[in-house]
């Protein structure tokens, strides 16, 4: 037994005889906690001192962190929109896009792997789609859809709000990436799962729907979240089509006041929505990992 805490019972859910990292660090005493806290504080204190003592620090502080400008950019002025208010547009774009992306990407991924010669054209279309939209940079797609489609003058399609075109562009591009993530997940589910499902009489679609896809999706939660997080930032690009979202609002304030505090506010907002998502995903991953390590694979 290691030194430290003799009274701690091993976690019954850990397989016996497999000292995990978590279990190891649980066994560390309060001394280690003290040392790590002290070293962390020292680390940040050193950085703080270096920054504060730098020659330009006063000006940088005023230009980036001035409380007056932080506040003013948050609430807005008669001639500059509020960064926080504009951020709601980012959230809206992100929420709508993500749902559409998760759906469209799943369709593409499934179509990619339907076996059988009769489905060849569908597989080819799905393949071409992912190649095309992973190849073209998002900003170009935004321009082509956001300025091109309205320019065509087609009934209804050319008269949508620019945010809609922005969402369409985001969905088209991100679905290509996410489809590949799904595909990796599907292929990572061991063939024996499919064999077991088919052996029970389930059809190929039933096996896909009840057995393969639920496992595939759980497995790719980290890369899915990564794309999610990237999407949150890319919502800012929709501003190219004219609507004012958080980064654009920051830019407007910045140009008007010659101050960058608005960018700090925008950055903070982006960080704030990323963190809970990341923690939630960590939980999902560890829960799924436990389940997955049941004796399934030969």
């Amino acid at each position, binding site marked *: 037994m290691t030194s430290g805490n003799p009274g701690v019972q091993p976690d019954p859910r850990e397989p016996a005889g497999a000292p995990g990292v978590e279990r190891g660090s649980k066994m560390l005493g309060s001394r280690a906690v003290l040392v790590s*806290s002290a070293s*962390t*504080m020292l680390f*940040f204190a050193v*950085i*703080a001192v270096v*920054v*504060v003592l730098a020659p*330009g*620090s*006063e*000006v*940088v*502080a*005023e*230009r*980036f*962190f*001035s*409380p*007056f400008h*932080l506040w003013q950019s948050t609430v807005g002025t*008669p*001639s500059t929109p509020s960064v926080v208010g504009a951020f709601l547009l980012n959230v809206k774009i992100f929420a709508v896009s993500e749902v559409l992306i998760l759906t469209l990407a799943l369709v593409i991924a499934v179509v990619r792997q339907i076996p059988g010669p009769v489905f060849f054209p569908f597989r080819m279309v799905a393949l071409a789609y992912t190649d095309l939209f992973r190849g073209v940079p998002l900003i170009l797609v935004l321009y082509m859809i*956001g*300025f*091109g489609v*309205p*320019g065509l*003058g087609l009934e209804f399609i*050319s*008269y949508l709000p*620019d945010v809609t075109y922005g969402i369409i562009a985001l969905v088209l591009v991100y679905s290509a990436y996410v489809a590949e993530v799904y595909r990796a997940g599907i292929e990572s589910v061991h063939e024996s799962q499919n064999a077991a499902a088919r052996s029970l009489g389930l059809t190929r679609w039933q096996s896909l729907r009840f057995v393969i896809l639920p496992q595939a999706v759980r497995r790719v939660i980290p890369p899915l979240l990564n794309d999610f997080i990237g999407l949150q930032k890319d919502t800012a690009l929709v*501003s*190219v*089509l*004219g*609507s*004012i979202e958080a980064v*654009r609002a920051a*830019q*407007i304030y*910045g*140009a*008007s*006041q*010659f*101050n*960058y505090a608005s960018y700090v506010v925008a950055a903070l907002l982006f960080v704030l929505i990323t963190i809970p998502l990341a923690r939630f995903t960590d939980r999902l991953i560890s829960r799924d990992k436990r389940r997955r390590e049941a004796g399934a694979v030969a």
Partner: protein
Amino acid sequence: MKRALLIGFLVASLMLAGCTGQQGSGGSQEGGSGSGNSCDIKSPPLFKEGVLTVATDKPAYPPWFEGNPEHYSGYEGEVASEVAERMDLPIEWVVEPFNKSYAPGAKDYDFDINQITITPEREQAVDFSEGYFDNAQGVLVLKDSPFADAQSISNLKDARMGAQVGTTGLEFINETVQPNEEPKVFETTNDAKSALESGQIDAMVTDLVTTVYLRDFEIDNSVVVGQYPRNEQFGMLFEQGNPLVGCVNQVLGKMKEDGTLQELEKKYLQQYLSVPTLEK
């Protein structure tokens, strides 16, 4: 949790520094804008010895800038060149994106000339020369637009308006026009132009001269509905506390006195200024 506290501590200490920084704005250097006293025109403080380094954005548009980027002509190009000549210095052009022009820290040039409007808020962060051009806002629409024969601001209330980010055009829209629909803001004049041409916006606002230039050379079937002066002046942008402002102001003052500035205006901008004024 501790990590969050420490980051908060770091930010708070920087904000505190920011507070004190604001009260003593201008830092340790002397010399405010406008005073000509502390600059010796015989040996002015220059970024690079013996040369006047002038910055502008890329791409640089006519009629503000024309010709070879090594020796710009055009209105702003020639104003700057004239200043250099009168200071007995060769001119060297460099590129500075607008968004960076107001960043803190030392500048890599003597001044930036780029249709930048002088405002009191901006003067908290940089120093401006005296104005070298009185700017008005221009409103551009397509000929077949319902707003093509608008004569007053109130005629534009229902228009979907657009402006380039960082210009006073947006302020004009928000403060003066106050349209019913939220205006659109674009990264570049080009994007605003595309939006106008594809029908995403009804009217585009930018500085008068550029508006007319677009009408005459870039957008077919467009019309400038009118201009709206707002008591705005373009000024050259200097690092805060740079004594060179004094020298440049001296020279500018002379150029106004002896009519050089007016001549340049006539040469490059005359054709872009005769546009009816919008009523309120």
